């Protein structure tokens, strides 16, 4: 039921007046502001002169319940070099050594897949590793990682159709033709993630932007800096789409610039 301002104000004034009167009686008519100088309760008419509440400058919207957490993917920076293990626990078999920096000088990040406590109560995190063989996962102590970042994007590279599609919250928001590895140096398939972004370098071969991924060439293992697979532009757009690269995923320059605006570092990459 809505009440107009006039009756509501009179009602409030009457209630407040009554309360003040009671307070005056209980307080022995002391000079606490609830009674006049003769000890009489303050009349309701005087209360009506009290100002209205100040209108707030802003009012928050409805509570924002978290929706669709399933589409979130998590990543975390490696804070210090650490040996990833096959299970949560310092005694478990070593899987790979993780460095705190990438060959490009950025902070090394890992995709976070889960967490568990070991027998001593220490928290371990299951992470996807940027090592060969591709697809390797391992466990690292929680304290060797930094904060968690999250993304709602996922890139799918289809080696048969020679396309890359970016999804956000499950909906396609970007699509482009790509160049992928030649048969002798195939682009690896599996689950990976974007671990850095390079810009403003002076090398037209890679176009204006290059994303580094956790994927590594299974054939070019002695390639400088470890043979990582990138997602980048090109100075040979006429070759796309095609099987033309040494394993990297090449896009036309306008496409990679568009993708740069949409795909944050940490985005999972599925190559199939």
């Amino acid at each position, binding site marked *: 039921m809505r009440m107009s301002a006039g009756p509501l104000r009179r009602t409030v004034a009457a209630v407040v007046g009554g309360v003040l009167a009671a307070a005056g009686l209980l307080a022995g008519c002391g000079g606490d502001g609830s009674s006049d100088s003769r000890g009489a309760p303050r009349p309701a008419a005087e209360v009506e002169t009290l100002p209205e509440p100040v209108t707030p400058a802003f009012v928050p919207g409805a509570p924002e*319940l978290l929706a669709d957490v399933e589409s979130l993917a998590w990543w975390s920076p490696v804070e210090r070099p650490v040996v990833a293990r096959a299970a949560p626990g310092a005694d478990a078999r070593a899987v790979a050594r993780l460095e705190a920096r990438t060959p490009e000088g950025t902070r090394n990040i890992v995709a976070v897949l889960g967490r568990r406590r070991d027998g001593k109560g220490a928290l371990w995190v299951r992470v996807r590793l940027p090592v060969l063989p591709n697809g390797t996962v391992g466990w690292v102590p929680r304290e060797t990682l930094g904060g*968690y970042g999250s993304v709602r994007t996922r890139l799918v590279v289809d080696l048969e159709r020679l396309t890359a599609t970016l999804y956000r919250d499950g909906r396609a928001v970007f699509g482009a033709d790509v160049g992928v590895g030649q048969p002798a140096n195939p682009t690896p398939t599996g689950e990976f993630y974007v671990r850095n972004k390079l810009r403003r*370098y002076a090398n037209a071969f890679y176009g204006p932007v290059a994303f580094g991924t956790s994927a590594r060439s299974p054939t070019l293992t002695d390639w400088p800096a470890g043979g990582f697979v990138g997602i980048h532009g090109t100075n040979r757009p006429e070759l796309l789409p095609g099987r033309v690269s040494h394993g990297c995923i090449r896009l036309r320059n306008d496409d990679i610039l568009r993708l740069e605006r949409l795909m944050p570092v940490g985005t999972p990459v599925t190559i199939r």
Partner: protein
Amino acid sequence: MPTEHPTPIIAELDRDGAIEEALAAAGGTTRRGFLAAALAGAGALAGFPETADAARGPKRDTAILNYALVFEYLQAGFYTEAESIGTIRAMGAERETWARTLGAHERAHVTILKDVLGRKAVARPFFDYRGVTEDGDAFTRTAVAMEDLTVALLAGQAPRVSDRSLRAAFFSLLTVEARHAAWARRITGFRPVAAAFDEPKTLAAVDRVVRSTRFLVSRPSRESRRSPRFTG
């Protein structure tokens, strides 16, 4: 039945005892710490003397709004992370309702403060909750401390807002945060109302407490200008 808790649970965040020192410095100015860094470029609230009338005005109001926004980012991120990775879901129905509700409120607070500040809003900092969001007990205890601290923060800053309609909005945020704090205390078995009077905290006090948590960290570098050496 709620247990007695004679001292504010904020002490749990004050690992190095910094708050004791900071509280003694009531009326002082902040050092260049967590909030000062977060507010760089958006009007350094930390530079305003707490009692200087000359500093009153829209600029300080903006700084206070950004100060509140950083704190709301901190809280919203805390609840969002714990909910997203499943910690909250595993805590039982009552605690799940509590934590999901508070997270939804804090996210709404972030949204409105960003809207109000527009281009002057500070960017979301990067947080490392250091495993606290991954442990139900640690999460709830820290949530209590955070809500208590937010009440003390807003109680200290709301009266400093010069625009009265903005001040009114701040007081409405303050009362909601106080309800959050009471709910969080009740959930964890602490007495919902710690004392008969909520002591406002200075910027220095809040700054020291937040710094002691080490939740606010540098954003990891993920971009470089080095020439790629990918396989091509």
